[in-house]
Protein backbone atom coordinates (compact mmCIF):
# COMPACT_ATOMS: atom_id res chain seq x y z
CA UNK A 1 0.00 0.00 0.00
CA UNK A 2 1.18 3.53 -0.77
CA UNK A 3 1.26 6.43 1.66
CA UNK A 4 -1.39 9.06 0.87
CA UNK A 5 -1.37 12.83 1.37
CA UNK A 6 -3.92 15.64 1.34
CA UNK A 7 -2.90 18.36 -1.12
CA UNK A 8 -6.00 20.56 -1.21
CA UNK A 9 -9.03 21.40 0.97
CA UNK A 10 -12.14 23.58 0.94
CA UNK A 11 -15.22 24.06 3.11
CA UNK A 12 -18.17 26.11 1.91
CA UNK A 13 -19.88 28.29 4.47
CA UNK A 14 -22.24 26.18 6.59
CA UNK A 15 -25.74 27.45 7.29
CA UNK A 16 -29.17 28.00 5.80
CA UNK A 17 -28.55 28.69 2.14
CA UNK A 18 -31.98 29.08 0.62
CA UNK A 19 -30.63 30.98 -2.36
CA UNK A 20 -28.20 28.26 -3.36
CA UNK A 21 -28.80 24.75 -4.66
CA UNK A 22 -27.33 21.36 -3.79
CA UNK A 23 -25.19 21.35 -6.90
CA UNK A 24 -24.04 24.96 -6.39
CA UNK A 25 -22.53 24.27 -3.00
CA UNK A 26 -20.80 21.01 -3.81
CA UNK A 27 -19.26 22.48 -6.96
CA UNK A 28 -17.98 25.44 -4.90
CA UNK A 29 -16.28 23.04 -2.48
CA UNK A 30 -14.87 20.85 -5.24
CA UNK A 31 -13.47 23.71 -7.33
CA UNK A 32 -12.08 25.31 -4.16
CA UNK A 33 -10.23 22.14 -3.16
CA UNK A 34 -8.82 21.74 -6.68
CA UNK A 35 -7.64 25.38 -6.69
CA UNK A 36 -6.10 24.92 -3.26
CA UNK A 37 -4.20 21.85 -4.47
CA UNK A 38 -2.89 23.42 -7.66
CA UNK A 39 -3.88 20.42 -9.78
CA UNK A 40 -6.06 20.91 -12.81
CA UNK A 41 -9.42 19.19 -12.74
CA UNK A 42 -8.61 17.00 -15.72
CA UNK A 43 -5.83 15.38 -13.68
CA UNK A 44 -8.41 13.77 -11.36
CA UNK A 45 -8.62 9.99 -11.60
CA UNK A 46 -11.75 9.63 -9.49
CA UNK A 47 -14.24 11.23 -7.11
CA UNK A 48 -15.98 9.88 -3.99
CA UNK A 49 -18.94 11.88 -2.71
CA UNK A 50 -20.48 11.46 0.73
CA UNK A 51 -24.21 12.16 0.77
CA UNK A 52 -26.79 10.77 3.15
CA UNK A 53 -30.24 11.60 1.84
CA UNK A 54 -30.27 13.49 -1.43
CA UNK A 55 -33.37 11.50 -2.34
CA UNK A 56 -35.30 12.81 0.64
CA UNK A 57 -33.81 16.30 1.06
CA UNK A 58 -33.68 17.43 -2.59
CA UNK A 59 -35.39 14.52 -4.37
CA UNK A 60 -32.20 13.79 -6.23
CA UNK A 61 -30.35 10.48 -6.42
CA UNK A 62 -27.48 9.58 -8.76
CA UNK A 63 -25.40 12.12 -6.88
CA UNK A 64 -21.99 10.89 -8.07
CA UNK A 65 -22.77 11.51 -11.73
CA UNK A 66 -24.56 14.79 -11.01
CA UNK A 67 -21.55 16.24 -9.26
CA UNK A 68 -19.03 15.06 -11.87
CA UNK A 69 -21.26 16.62 -14.52
CA UNK A 70 -21.70 20.02 -12.82
CA UNK A 71 -17.99 20.16 -11.96
CA UNK A 72 -17.24 19.92 -15.67
CA UNK A 73 -15.61 16.52 -15.31
CA UNK A 74 -18.02 14.39 -17.33
CA UNK A 75 -17.94 15.75 -20.85
CA UNK A 76 -14.88 14.37 -22.69
CA UNK A 77 -13.11 13.40 -19.42
CA UNK A 78 -15.67 10.89 -18.09
CA UNK A 79 -14.04 10.89 -14.64
CA UNK A 80 -15.56 8.15 -12.47
CA UNK A 81 -17.59 9.49 -9.54
CA UNK A 82 -19.05 7.34 -6.76
CA UNK A 83 -21.59 8.28 -4.09
CA UNK A 84 -20.92 6.85 -0.64
CA UNK A 85 -23.63 6.55 2.02
CA UNK A 86 -23.35 5.71 5.70
CA UNK A 87 -25.90 8.09 7.22
CA UNK A 88 -24.13 10.96 9.06
CA UNK A 89 -20.79 9.16 8.50
CA UNK A 90 -21.15 9.40 4.71
CA UNK A 91 -18.44 12.08 4.41
CA UNK A 92 -15.92 10.24 6.55
CA UNK A 93 -16.57 7.10 4.57
CA UNK A 94 -16.18 8.90 1.22
CA UNK A 95 -12.79 10.13 2.46
CA UNK A 96 -11.85 6.58 3.47
CA UNK A 97 -12.81 5.23 0.03
CA UNK A 98 -10.69 7.93 -1.63
CA UNK A 99 -7.72 7.15 0.63
CA UNK A 100 -8.00 3.45 -0.20
CA UNK A 101 -8.22 4.18 -3.94
CA UNK A 102 -4.94 6.10 -3.82
CA UNK A 103 -3.26 3.73 -1.34
CA UNK A 104 -4.04 0.75 -3.53
CA UNK A 105 -2.33 2.34 -6.51
CA UNK A 106 -5.48 2.13 -8.54
CA UNK A 107 -5.96 5.91 -8.74
CA UNK A 108 -3.52 8.79 -8.21
CA UNK A 109 -5.21 12.17 -7.84
CA UNK A 110 -8.60 11.70 -6.18
CA UNK A 111 -11.24 14.00 -4.75
CA UNK A 112 -13.30 13.20 -1.66
CA UNK A 113 -16.29 15.47 -1.16
CA UNK A 114 -19.34 15.60 1.08
CA UNK A 115 -22.57 17.52 0.69
CA UNK A 116 -26.04 17.90 2.16
CA UNK A 117 -28.79 20.41 1.43
CA UNK A 118 -31.20 20.07 4.34
CA UNK A 119 -33.18 23.31 4.37
CA UNK A 120 -35.09 22.78 1.13
CA UNK A 121 -37.63 20.73 3.14
CA UNK A 122 -39.52 21.51 6.37
CA UNK A 123 -37.79 20.69 9.64
CA UNK A 124 -40.32 17.89 10.20
CA UNK A 125 -39.45 16.34 6.85
CA UNK A 126 -35.74 16.78 7.60
CA UNK A 127 -36.12 15.03 10.97
CA UNK A 128 -38.02 12.23 9.29
CA UNK A 129 -35.24 11.78 6.70
CA UNK A 130 -32.65 11.67 9.47
CA UNK A 131 -34.67 9.09 11.39
CA UNK A 132 -34.10 6.73 8.46
CA UNK A 133 -30.55 6.25 9.81
CA UNK A 134 -32.02 4.42 12.82
CA UNK A 135 -34.02 1.18 12.71
CA UNK A 136 -37.26 2.29 11.08
CA UNK A 137 -39.12 -0.98 11.73
CA UNK A 138 -38.31 -1.27 15.43
CA UNK A 139 -37.30 2.22 16.63
CA UNK A 140 -38.97 4.67 14.26
CA UNK A 141 -42.32 2.93 14.48
CA UNK A 142 -42.40 3.51 18.24
CA UNK A 143 -41.94 7.26 17.79
CA UNK A 144 -38.16 7.33 18.25
CA UNK A 145 -36.35 10.44 17.00
CA UNK A 146 -32.58 10.98 16.84
CA UNK A 147 -32.56 13.34 19.80
CA UNK A 148 -34.67 10.70 21.59
CA UNK A 149 -32.12 7.95 20.99
CA UNK A 150 -29.22 10.11 22.17
CA UNK A 151 -31.35 11.27 25.11
CA UNK A 152 -31.63 7.62 26.19
CA UNK A 153 -27.82 7.35 25.98
CA UNK A 154 -27.56 10.56 28.03
CA UNK A 155 -30.04 9.36 30.68
CA UNK A 156 -28.09 6.13 31.15
CA UNK A 157 -24.73 7.97 31.23
CA UNK A 158 -26.10 10.28 33.94
CA UNK A 159 -27.46 7.31 35.88
CA UNK A 160 -24.27 5.24 35.68
CA UNK A 161 -21.53 7.87 35.91
CA UNK A 162 -23.16 10.91 37.47
CA UNK A 163 -22.81 12.98 34.30
CA UNK A 164 -24.80 16.20 34.66
CA UNK A 165 -26.82 18.47 32.38
CA UNK A 166 -24.29 21.21 33.21
CA UNK A 167 -21.44 19.02 31.93
CA UNK A 168 -23.33 18.34 28.69
CA UNK A 169 -24.00 22.06 28.35
CA UNK A 170 -20.26 22.68 28.79
CA UNK A 171 -19.69 20.80 25.52
CA UNK A 172 -22.00 23.22 23.70
CA UNK A 173 -20.44 26.26 25.36
CA UNK A 174 -16.91 25.18 24.37
CA UNK A 175 -17.90 24.34 20.81
CA UNK A 176 -19.72 27.63 20.29
CA UNK A 177 -16.65 29.45 21.59
CA UNK A 178 -14.43 27.58 19.10
CA UNK A 179 -16.97 28.10 16.32
CA UNK A 180 -17.03 31.86 17.00
CA UNK A 181 -13.48 31.85 15.56
CA UNK A 182 -14.41 29.80 12.49
CA UNK A 183 -15.58 31.85 9.50
CA UNK A 184 -17.59 28.94 8.04
CA UNK A 185 -19.62 28.20 11.19
CA UNK A 186 -23.42 28.49 11.16
CA UNK A 187 -23.61 29.82 14.74
CA UNK A 188 -20.83 32.18 15.70
CA UNK A 189 -22.25 33.69 18.86
CA UNK A 190 -21.01 32.32 22.17
CA UNK A 191 -23.55 30.75 24.54
CA UNK A 192 -23.59 30.03 28.27
CA UNK A 193 -24.42 26.98 30.38
CA UNK A 194 -27.58 28.79 31.54
CA UNK A 195 -28.76 29.46 28.00
CA UNK A 196 -28.39 25.75 27.18
CA UNK A 197 -30.25 24.68 30.33
CA UNK A 198 -33.00 27.24 29.74
CA UNK A 199 -33.53 26.34 26.09
CA UNK A 200 -36.57 24.24 25.25
CA UNK A 201 -36.51 20.53 26.00
CA UNK A 202 -36.46 18.39 22.84
CA UNK A 203 -36.05 14.94 24.38
CA UNK A 204 -35.41 14.92 28.10
CA UNK A 205 -32.56 15.41 29.19
CA UNK A 206 -31.49 17.04 25.89
CA UNK A 207 -32.37 20.69 25.31
CA UNK A 208 -32.40 22.21 21.86
CA UNK A 209 -28.95 23.74 22.52
CA UNK A 210 -27.67 20.20 23.17
CA UNK A 211 -28.51 19.35 19.54
CA UNK A 212 -26.69 20.14 16.29
CA UNK A 213 -28.82 22.14 13.86
CA UNK A 214 -30.16 21.43 10.36
CA UNK A 215 -27.68 22.86 7.90
CA UNK A 216 -26.62 23.18 4.26
CA UNK A 217 -22.99 22.78 3.37
CA UNK A 218 -20.30 21.02 1.40
CA UNK A 219 -16.62 20.22 1.80
CA UNK A 220 -13.95 18.69 -0.41
CA UNK A 221 -10.35 17.50 -0.27
CA UNK A 222 -7.87 16.39 -2.93
CA UNK A 223 -5.57 13.42 -2.31
CA UNK A 224 -2.36 12.31 -3.98
CA UNK A 225 0.27 9.60 -3.43
CA UNK A 226 2.68 10.88 -0.74
CA UNK A 227 5.64 10.41 -3.12
CA UNK A 228 4.42 13.13 -5.47
CA UNK A 229 2.51 15.37 -3.03
CA UNK A 230 5.35 17.90 -2.87
CA UNK A 231 4.91 18.61 -6.56
CA UNK A 232 1.63 20.28 -5.66
CA UNK A 233 1.99 21.73 -2.17
CA UNK A 234 4.62 22.71 0.38
CA UNK A 235 2.46 21.46 3.21
CA UNK A 236 1.08 18.00 2.38
CA UNK A 237 -0.75 16.40 5.30
CA UNK A 238 -0.28 12.65 5.55
CA UNK A 239 -2.90 10.03 6.34
CA UNK A 240 -1.46 7.83 9.08
CA UNK A 241 -4.55 5.70 9.60
CA UNK A 242 -8.00 5.01 8.21
CA UNK A 243 -10.42 2.81 10.11
CA UNK A 244 -14.11 1.97 10.04
CA UNK A 245 -16.35 -0.21 12.22
CA UNK A 246 -19.98 -1.29 12.42
CA UNK A 247 -22.36 -1.96 15.30
CA UNK A 248 -26.03 -2.83 15.68
CA UNK A 249 -28.37 -0.48 13.83
CA UNK A 250 -30.70 -0.24 16.85
CA UNK A 251 -29.58 1.31 20.10
CA UNK A 252 -31.46 -1.32 22.13
CA UNK A 253 -29.20 -4.13 20.84
CA UNK A 254 -25.95 -2.57 22.09
CA UNK A 255 -23.65 -4.32 24.56
CA UNK A 256 -23.52 -1.10 26.61
CA UNK A 257 -25.87 1.76 25.75
CA UNK A 258 -23.37 4.38 27.03
CA UNK A 259 -20.51 3.12 24.82
CA UNK A 260 -20.43 3.29 21.03
CA UNK A 261 -18.49 0.09 20.36
CA UNK A 262 -18.07 1.06 16.69
CA UNK A 263 -16.12 4.14 17.85
CA UNK A 264 -14.07 2.03 20.27
CA UNK A 265 -13.24 -0.47 17.54
CA UNK A 266 -12.46 2.07 14.81
CA UNK A 267 -10.36 4.10 17.26
CA UNK A 268 -8.37 1.06 18.33
CA UNK A 269 -7.73 0.02 14.72
CA UNK A 270 -6.62 3.54 13.82
CA UNK A 271 -4.18 3.79 16.73
CA UNK A 272 -2.72 0.39 15.81
CA UNK A 273 -2.34 1.36 12.16
CA UNK A 274 -0.61 4.65 13.04
CA UNK A 275 1.39 3.02 15.85
CA UNK A 276 0.17 5.78 18.15
CA UNK A 277 -1.78 6.24 21.39
CA UNK A 278 -4.24 8.97 22.43
CA UNK A 279 -1.32 10.83 24.01
CA UNK A 280 0.13 11.42 20.52
CA UNK A 281 -2.94 13.33 19.32
CA UNK A 282 -2.92 17.15 19.54
CA UNK A 283 -6.47 17.75 18.37
CA UNK A 284 -9.53 15.71 17.49
CA UNK A 285 -12.70 16.51 15.58
CA UNK A 286 -15.37 14.25 17.09
CA UNK A 287 -18.97 13.64 16.11
CA UNK A 288 -20.93 15.89 18.48
CA UNK A 289 -24.37 15.62 16.87
CA UNK A 290 -25.58 15.96 20.48
CA UNK A 291 -23.56 17.14 23.46
CA UNK A 292 -23.68 13.66 25.05
CA UNK A 293 -22.17 12.28 21.81
CA UNK A 294 -18.98 14.28 22.35
CA UNK A 295 -18.72 13.01 25.91
CA UNK A 296 -19.10 9.42 24.70
CA UNK A 297 -16.67 10.03 21.83
CA UNK A 298 -13.77 11.23 23.96
CA UNK A 299 -14.31 8.25 26.27
CA UNK A 300 -14.68 5.75 23.42
CA UNK A 301 -11.50 7.00 21.69
CA UNK A 302 -9.47 6.86 24.91
CA UNK A 303 -9.02 10.59 25.61
CA UNK A 304 -11.06 10.32 28.82
CA UNK A 305 -11.61 7.45 31.23
CA UNK A 306 -15.06 5.85 30.91
CA UNK A 307 -17.52 8.05 32.74
CA UNK A 308 -15.19 11.05 33.04
CA UNK A 309 -15.85 12.74 29.69
CA UNK A 310 -18.30 15.20 31.21
CA UNK A 311 -16.03 16.13 34.08
CA UNK A 312 -13.07 16.55 31.75
CA UNK A 313 -15.08 18.90 29.54
CA UNK A 314 -16.35 20.93 32.48
CA UNK A 315 -12.78 21.35 33.74
CA UNK A 316 -11.64 22.80 30.41
CA UNK A 317 -9.29 19.95 29.45
CA UNK A 318 -10.91 19.63 26.00
CA UNK A 319 -10.65 23.34 25.16
CA UNK A 320 -8.03 24.78 22.81
CA UNK A 321 -4.91 24.92 24.99
CA UNK A 322 -6.19 22.10 27.22
CA UNK A 323 -4.95 18.52 27.44
CA UNK A 324 -6.59 17.57 24.12
CA UNK A 325 -8.28 20.14 21.87
CA UNK A 326 -11.69 18.73 20.94
CA UNK A 327 -13.70 20.19 18.07
CA UNK A 328 -11.60 23.25 17.36
CA UNK A 329 -13.84 23.92 14.33
CA UNK A 330 -16.83 24.37 16.61
CA UNK A 331 -17.97 20.83 15.89
CA UNK A 332 -21.32 19.85 14.50
CA UNK A 333 -22.88 21.91 17.27
CA UNK A 334 -21.66 25.34 16.17
CA UNK A 335 -20.60 24.75 12.53
CA UNK A 336 -23.87 22.97 11.80
CA UNK A 337 -24.29 19.40 10.63
CA UNK A 338 -24.96 19.00 6.90
CA UNK A 339 -24.93 15.24 7.42
CA UNK A 340 -23.07 14.05 4.31
CA UNK A 341 -20.54 16.90 4.49
CA UNK A 342 -19.54 16.67 8.15
CA UNK A 343 -16.90 13.93 7.83
CA UNK A 344 -15.06 15.84 5.10
CA UNK A 345 -15.34 19.12 7.01
CA UNK A 346 -13.60 17.42 9.94
CA UNK A 347 -10.70 16.45 7.64
CA UNK A 348 -10.52 20.02 6.29
CA UNK A 349 -10.36 21.42 9.85
CA UNK A 350 -7.58 19.04 10.93
CA UNK A 351 -5.64 19.77 7.72
CA UNK A 352 -5.90 23.53 8.30
CA UNK A 353 -4.76 23.05 11.91
CA UNK A 354 -1.76 20.92 10.88
CA UNK A 355 -0.84 23.45 8.20
CA UNK A 356 -0.98 26.19 10.85
CA UNK A 357 -3.79 27.97 9.00
CA UNK A 358 -6.54 27.90 11.64
CA UNK A 359 -6.30 31.55 12.72
CA UNK A 360 -7.70 32.37 16.15
CA UNK A 361 -8.55 28.74 16.88
CA UNK A 362 -5.06 27.43 16.01
CA UNK A 363 -3.71 24.73 18.34
CA UNK A 364 -0.07 25.65 19.05
CA UNK A 365 2.40 23.29 17.42
CA UNK A 366 -0.25 20.85 16.18
CA UNK A 367 1.51 17.84 14.65
CA UNK A 368 -1.08 15.05 14.74
CA UNK A 369 -4.88 15.22 14.49
CA UNK A 370 -7.77 12.79 14.44
CA UNK A 371 -11.25 12.77 12.93
CA UNK A 372 -14.21 10.72 14.21
CA UNK A 373 -17.44 10.53 12.22
CA UNK A 374 -20.49 8.52 13.39
CA UNK A 375 -23.48 7.28 11.42
CA UNK A 376 -26.86 6.88 13.09
CA UNK A 377 -26.82 6.28 16.84
CA UNK A 378 -23.46 4.51 16.41
CA UNK A 379 -23.98 1.79 13.79
CA UNK A 380 -21.04 3.16 11.78
CA UNK A 381 -17.89 4.91 12.96
CA UNK A 382 -15.06 6.17 10.74
CA UNK A 383 -11.79 7.36 12.26
CA UNK A 384 -8.72 8.91 10.61
CA UNK A 385 -5.35 10.03 11.92
CA UNK A 386 -3.58 12.81 10.00
CA UNK A 387 -0.07 14.15 10.56
CA UNK A 388 2.40 16.79 9.36
CA UNK A 389 5.20 14.27 9.18
CA UNK A 390 5.13 11.29 6.85
Amino acid at each position, binding site marked *: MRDVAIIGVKNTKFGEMWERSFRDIVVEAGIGAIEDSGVSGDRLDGMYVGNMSGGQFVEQEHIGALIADYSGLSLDLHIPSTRVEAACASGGLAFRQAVMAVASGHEDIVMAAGVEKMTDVSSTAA*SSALAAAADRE*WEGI*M*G*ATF*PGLYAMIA*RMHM*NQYGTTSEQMAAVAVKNHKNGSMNPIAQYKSPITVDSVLNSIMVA*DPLHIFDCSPITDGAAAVVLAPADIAHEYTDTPIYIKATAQASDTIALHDRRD*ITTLDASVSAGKRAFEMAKMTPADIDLVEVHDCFTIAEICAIEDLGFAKKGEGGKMTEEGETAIGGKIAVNTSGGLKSCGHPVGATGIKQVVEVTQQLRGEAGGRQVDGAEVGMTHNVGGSGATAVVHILARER
Partner: protein
Amino acid sequence: MSVARFWRKQINRYNLVGTHCKTCDAYYYPPRNVCPKCRRDGEIESHKFSGPGEIVTYTVIHTAAEGFEHQAPYVLGIVQLDEGPRFTSQIVCKPEDARIGMKVKPVFRKLGESGDNGMIYYGTKYVPA
Protein backbone atom coordinates in the same frame (compact mmCIF):
# COMPACT_ATOMS: atom_id res chain seq x y z
CA MET B 1 -44.24 2.92 6.93
CA SER B 2 -45.86 1.04 4.04
CA VAL B 3 -48.69 -1.39 4.68
CA ALA B 4 -46.65 -4.35 3.39
CA ARG B 5 -43.68 -3.52 5.56
CA PHE B 6 -45.85 -3.32 8.66
CA TRP B 7 -47.96 -6.36 7.83
CA ARG B 8 -44.96 -8.71 7.59
CA LYS B 9 -44.13 -8.21 11.27
CA GLN B 10 -47.70 -7.91 12.53
CA ILE B 11 -47.71 -11.23 14.42
CA ASN B 12 -44.43 -10.29 16.12
CA ARG B 13 -45.70 -6.86 17.12
CA TYR B 14 -49.16 -7.95 18.26
CA ASN B 15 -48.10 -10.97 20.27
CA LEU B 16 -44.51 -10.28 21.33
CA VAL B 17 -43.24 -13.11 19.15
CA GLY B 18 -39.47 -13.13 18.76
CA THR B 19 -36.89 -15.84 18.30
CA HIS B 20 -34.73 -18.14 20.40
CA CYS B 21 -31.37 -19.64 19.41
CA LYS B 22 -31.25 -23.28 20.50
CA THR B 23 -27.47 -23.39 20.10
CA CYS B 24 -26.56 -20.63 22.58
CA ASP B 25 -29.94 -20.25 24.35
CA ALA B 26 -30.16 -16.51 23.57
CA TYR B 27 -33.54 -14.83 23.04
CA TYR B 28 -34.20 -12.14 20.42
CA TYR B 29 -36.92 -9.54 20.25
CA PRO B 30 -37.18 -8.02 17.64
CA PRO B 31 -36.84 -11.40 15.91
CA ARG B 32 -33.72 -12.39 13.97
CA ASN B 33 -33.13 -15.00 11.28
CA VAL B 34 -29.43 -15.31 12.09
CA CYS B 35 -28.05 -15.54 15.63
CA PRO B 36 -25.42 -12.75 15.92
CA LYS B 37 -23.45 -14.85 18.40
CA CYS B 38 -23.49 -18.26 16.67
CA ARG B 39 -23.98 -16.98 13.12
CA ARG B 40 -24.37 -19.99 10.81
CA ASP B 41 -24.08 -22.46 13.69
CA GLY B 42 -27.15 -21.02 15.36
CA GLU B 43 -30.50 -22.77 15.28
CA ILE B 44 -33.36 -20.28 15.40
CA GLU B 45 -36.91 -21.08 16.53
CA SER B 46 -39.92 -18.86 17.10
CA HIS B 47 -40.59 -17.81 20.71
CA LYS B 48 -43.52 -16.02 22.33
CA PHE B 49 -42.31 -13.86 25.20
CA SER B 50 -44.06 -13.88 28.56
CA GLY B 51 -44.29 -10.08 28.64
CA PRO B 52 -42.94 -8.51 31.83
CA GLY B 53 -39.76 -6.47 31.77
CA GLU B 54 -38.05 -3.40 33.17
CA ILE B 55 -36.92 -0.01 31.89
CA VAL B 56 -33.20 0.15 31.05
CA THR B 57 -33.23 3.81 30.01
CA TYR B 58 -35.85 6.27 28.77
CA THR B 59 -36.54 9.77 27.50
CA VAL B 60 -39.53 12.06 27.38
CA ILE B 61 -39.94 13.19 23.80
CA HIS B 62 -41.27 16.75 23.48
CA THR B 63 -40.46 17.34 19.80
CA ALA B 64 -42.38 14.43 18.31
CA ALA B 65 -41.56 12.24 15.37
CA GLU B 66 -43.73 12.74 12.27
CA GLY B 67 -47.14 11.17 12.91
CA PHE B 68 -46.74 11.28 16.71
CA GLU B 69 -47.38 15.02 17.17
CA HIS B 70 -50.66 14.57 19.04
CA GLN B 71 -49.02 12.19 21.54
CA ALA B 72 -46.24 14.54 22.73
CA PRO B 73 -44.89 14.61 25.32
CA TYR B 74 -44.50 10.83 25.32
CA VAL B 75 -42.19 8.47 27.15
CA LEU B 76 -39.92 6.31 25.00
CA GLY B 77 -37.86 3.64 26.68
CA ILE B 78 -35.63 0.65 26.15
CA VAL B 79 -37.31 -2.30 27.84
CA GLN B 80 -35.49 -5.46 28.90
CA LEU B 81 -37.70 -8.54 28.94
CA ASP B 82 -37.27 -11.10 31.70
CA GLU B 83 -35.82 -13.51 29.08
CA GLY B 84 -33.07 -11.00 28.23
CA PRO B 85 -33.69 -9.15 24.98
CA ARG B 86 -34.01 -5.37 24.84
CA PHE B 87 -36.17 -3.33 22.49
CA THR B 88 -37.56 0.16 22.11
CA SER B 89 -41.13 0.86 23.22
CA GLN B 90 -43.37 3.67 24.29
CA ILE B 91 -44.10 3.60 28.00
CA VAL B 92 -47.64 4.65 28.77
CA CYS B 93 -47.30 6.62 32.02
CA LYS B 94 -46.98 10.19 33.26
CA PRO B 95 -43.57 11.53 32.12
CA GLU B 96 -42.62 12.36 35.70
CA ASP B 97 -43.34 8.78 36.85
CA ALA B 98 -40.86 7.09 34.48
CA ARG B 99 -37.62 5.87 36.00
CA ILE B 100 -34.77 3.49 35.24
CA GLY B 101 -35.41 0.05 36.76
CA MET B 102 -39.22 0.46 36.73
CA LYS B 103 -41.08 -2.85 36.25
CA VAL B 104 -43.38 -2.77 33.26
CA LYS B 105 -45.87 -5.02 31.48
CA PRO B 106 -47.19 -5.10 27.89
CA VAL B 107 -50.50 -3.72 26.64
CA PHE B 108 -52.04 -3.81 23.17
CA ARG B 109 -52.31 -0.24 21.87
CA LYS B 110 -52.42 1.95 18.81
CA LEU B 111 -48.83 2.79 17.88
CA GLY B 112 -49.45 5.53 15.35
CA GLU B 113 -50.88 6.34 11.97
CA SER B 114 -49.39 7.33 8.69
CA GLY B 115 -50.66 10.62 7.32
CA ASP B 116 -51.22 9.95 3.66
CA ASN B 117 -52.99 6.59 3.49
CA GLY B 118 -54.46 6.86 6.97
CA MET B 119 -53.30 3.43 8.06
CA ILE B 120 -53.39 2.91 11.81
CA TYR B 121 -50.66 0.77 13.35
CA TYR B 122 -51.31 -1.36 16.41
CA GLY B 123 -48.81 -3.21 18.53
CA THR B 124 -47.38 -3.55 22.00
CA LYS B 125 -46.64 -0.69 24.36
CA TYR B 126 -45.65 -0.93 28.02
CA VAL B 127 -47.30 0.31 31.22
CA PRO B 128 -46.02 0.29 34.81
CA ALA B 129 -46.51 -3.22 36.26
